[in-house]
């Protein structure tokens, strides 16, 4: 008979030894670095080309993301339909994404079809022609999407809080507008394409069950291109944070919920406090059992969910608290958030609660190491942010070793309401 009164014995997750499977590094003939993880049971592969082509490098708003989007919309040989049909015929998914510093093309495919797909990817990154009719449709689609999104309090709040933190002229603070979409011209995008893709800086991340000749396939398709010849221009952007810290915005006069964002600047992910502060963040609002969730959702029922997290960019980081709450309880929610900050500053967390958070965090990492795509994802973050190859081990050690006193110290260093921007959009 099971004794239900007593919890079964557990092995503390922090007693596990965690290893991030090392990558194999291949240098193609033209100097492109390829990071490869060969693992997994399924015959699938993920290939990602990362270019220094994010909005950090654009002169006019939206040029980087529009160029990235148009990579699939026409070369001198194939129109948009041909391109889509080719990838879809082989059951593969080719996605493109534009971020602040980088822009990517990523392919998910069955391993057996990879050789049919790489030559077309090569075509896209060397011979995209950015046809005006395609750009016209893009503008039309994006403007309508934007119009719908601007009705959503969470979407509006996400834009505004970034603007307050970084300034509307900074890549992290600026956002889309109908005017910016209308201003996009094919010539402008073609120039950006030529500088940041055709002659750009590229690295490749590949994972899954790799074909034996992966090196040869990559070299044939990407090793002879004029990539990585010129260094990306050194561009600096000045952060212009808002002077005013508190905002209340009415976006929809009939709105029944408010989107709350509370955020402050935080030293970047290479700062010595970073990992230990991640533990503090988890305790504060980073998991289901967090202080914010326990109080504001599970005790008060003000919201369906409240979360805090680090919003990491290469040149700056923000600590963000985010929730949607009933309009009549938004102010009460904010009061409780600050109250939880105060408790973390004033009271030392118990060893027991801290151990729970550590076990949860390590358990999550452990569960996240099971597939090749997750492993390469962690390496990509480490490599692109130049965090050092021992970063994973250092992080695990920091999580395991952080003490209640250190947690309190960090709370006293960073969790002060007056440092935070505060916004409600109804």
């Amino acid at each position, binding site marked *: 008979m099971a004794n239900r009164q007593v919890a079964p014995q*557990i092995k*503390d997750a922090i007693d596990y030894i965690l290893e991030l499977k090392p990558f194999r590094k291949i240098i193609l003939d033209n100097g492109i670095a390829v990071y490869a993880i060969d693992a997994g049971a399924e015959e699938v592969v993920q290939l990602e080309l990362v270019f220094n082509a994010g909005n950090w490098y654009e002169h006019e708003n939206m040029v980087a993301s529009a160029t990235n989007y148009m990579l699939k919309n026409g070369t001198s040989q194939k129109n948009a339909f041909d391109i889509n049909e080719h990838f879809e*015929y082989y059951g593969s998914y080719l996605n493109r994404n534009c971020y602040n510093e980088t822009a990517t093309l990523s392919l998910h495919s069955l391993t057996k079809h990879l050789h049919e797909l790489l030559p077309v990817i090569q075509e896209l990154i060397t011979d995209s022609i950015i046809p005006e009719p395609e750009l016209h449709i893009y503008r039309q*689609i994006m403007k309508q999407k934007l119009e*719908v999104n601007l009705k959503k309090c969470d979407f509006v709040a996400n834009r505004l809080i970034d603007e307050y933190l970084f300034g509307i002229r900074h890549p992290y603070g600026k956002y889309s507008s109908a005017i910016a979409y209308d201003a996009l011209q094919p010539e402008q995008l073609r120039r950006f394409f030529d500088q940041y893709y055709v002659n750009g800086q590229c690295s490749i991340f590949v994972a899954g069950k790799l074909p034996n000749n992966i090196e040869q396939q990559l070299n044939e398709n990407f090793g002879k291109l004029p990539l990585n010849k010129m260094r990306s221009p050194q561009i600096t952007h000045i952060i212009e944070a808002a002077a005013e810290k508190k905002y209340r915005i009415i976006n929809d006069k009939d709105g029944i919920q408010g989107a709350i964002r509370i955020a402050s600047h935080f030293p970047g992910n290479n700062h010595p406090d970073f990992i230990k502060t991640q533990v503090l963040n988890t305790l504060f609002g980073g998991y289901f059992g967090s202080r914010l969730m326990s109080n504001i959702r599970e005790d008060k029922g003000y919201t369906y969910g409240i979360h805090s997290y680090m919003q990491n960019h290469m040149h700056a980081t923000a600590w963000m608290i985010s929730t949607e709450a009933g309009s009549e309880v938004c102010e009460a929610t904010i009061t409780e958030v600050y109250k939880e900050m105060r408790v973390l500053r004033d009271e030392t967390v118990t060893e027991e609660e801290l151990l729970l958070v550590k076990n949860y965090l390590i358990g999550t990492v452990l569960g996240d190491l*099971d597939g090749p795509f997750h492993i390469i994802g962690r390496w990509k973050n480490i490599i692109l942010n130049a965090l050092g190859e021992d970063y994973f081990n250092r992080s695990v050690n920091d999580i395991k070793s952080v003490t209640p006193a250190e947690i309190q110290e960090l709370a006293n260093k960073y969790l002060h309401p007056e440092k935070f921007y505060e916004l409600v959009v109804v």
Partner: protein
Amino acid sequence: MIQFEQFVLQNGLKVVVHEDHSTPMAVVNVMYDVGARDENPAQTGFAHLFEHLMFGGSVNIPSYDEPLQRAGGENNAYTTNDLTNYYCQLPAENIETAFWLESDRMLSLDFGEKSLEVQRKVVSEEFKEHYLNKPYGDVWHKMRTLAYKNHPYRWMTIGAELSHIENATLEDVKQFFSKHYRPVNAILTVAGHVTAAQVQQLAEKWFGDIPSGERYMRHLPQEPLQTTPRKLEVHANVPVDAFYKCWHIYPRMDSRYYTTDLLTEILSGGGSSRLFQSLVKEKQIFSSIGCYHFGSIDAGLLTIEGKLVRGVKMEDAELAVEAELQKIKNAPVEEKELRKVKNKTESLIAFEDMSLMNRAGSLSFYTLLGNTNMINEELNKYQVVTPTEIQQETNIIFDPANSNTMYYFGNR
């Protein structure tokens, strides 16, 4: 090929084990054969509210989450119109913690008025966040009411109205538990770094003594065949006009399910699909368009929805959609086009099966449907679909008498 073993405990609990020793983790998945379709029409949203309450403490354990997190685990749950599923993942060495937690809440819940009151509020906020305070958030509320007259798919999982959730009492909740949350109505799937023998021993130990309960016999009102087209016009505070049209399709276990699934892929499964190419790219009538179904167990709906390019008339948009449907009714799809959507399905299955959590969920779902080995048989069922079958089905499904059309007008 995904290997599994299965057995049934004396009390009727079905157990499935999937060993995968390439991971240090284990997944424990408990699926209950109850969803929003099993609710009383005057108390909708109950299955989902109940899912929230399952985390409010059980007879011997005051909190579900804490011990699990302490054991390095994480968990979540979801409710659909068909079923309710709870899953957690934790280091395999701590798997007994999951058995202890899951069996205790199957044994008996123990939460009070306070927990019920808080979760009523939480679910109300969820309702507002996803369905009331979002542009187009009420579409499925309206569409379900239009398309279903009898079957309980006529309301959404979250509930038909906020008041049903706000009025839920502790007594209602207890009755719901004893009717549905019994071993005989549940499936336990354990996957990962475990052995079948170990799972058998743990299942006996923790679940074996839970009273079986009565098998819930489902007698849902059936939806009569629709014989005339239905239409609805909505005016709402949204910036862009939208078009929605639904047709009744087949239950999940009908062999024609696979034909209709491929049909939705042909119509809108990517940048080279028919509706996108013709109506977004060439004719520029829609700024977005999609064709999909929910994969529901009872007969579901196939939906085409799109947002209209400003200036386009709703009637013209509808005619353009109909013209595309006419093409696929008139001529069989070409072999290459069919090959494409089958290849996509093949890789989609391969990608889904990468995750241990997905495998555990699928094994539970197919067991609920009555054949666990469907996890290995699905791909072949797609492979054998022919162009003729697709053409036949489009002529049956896209019959105007079977259609439900919604014109959703914005205010600009």
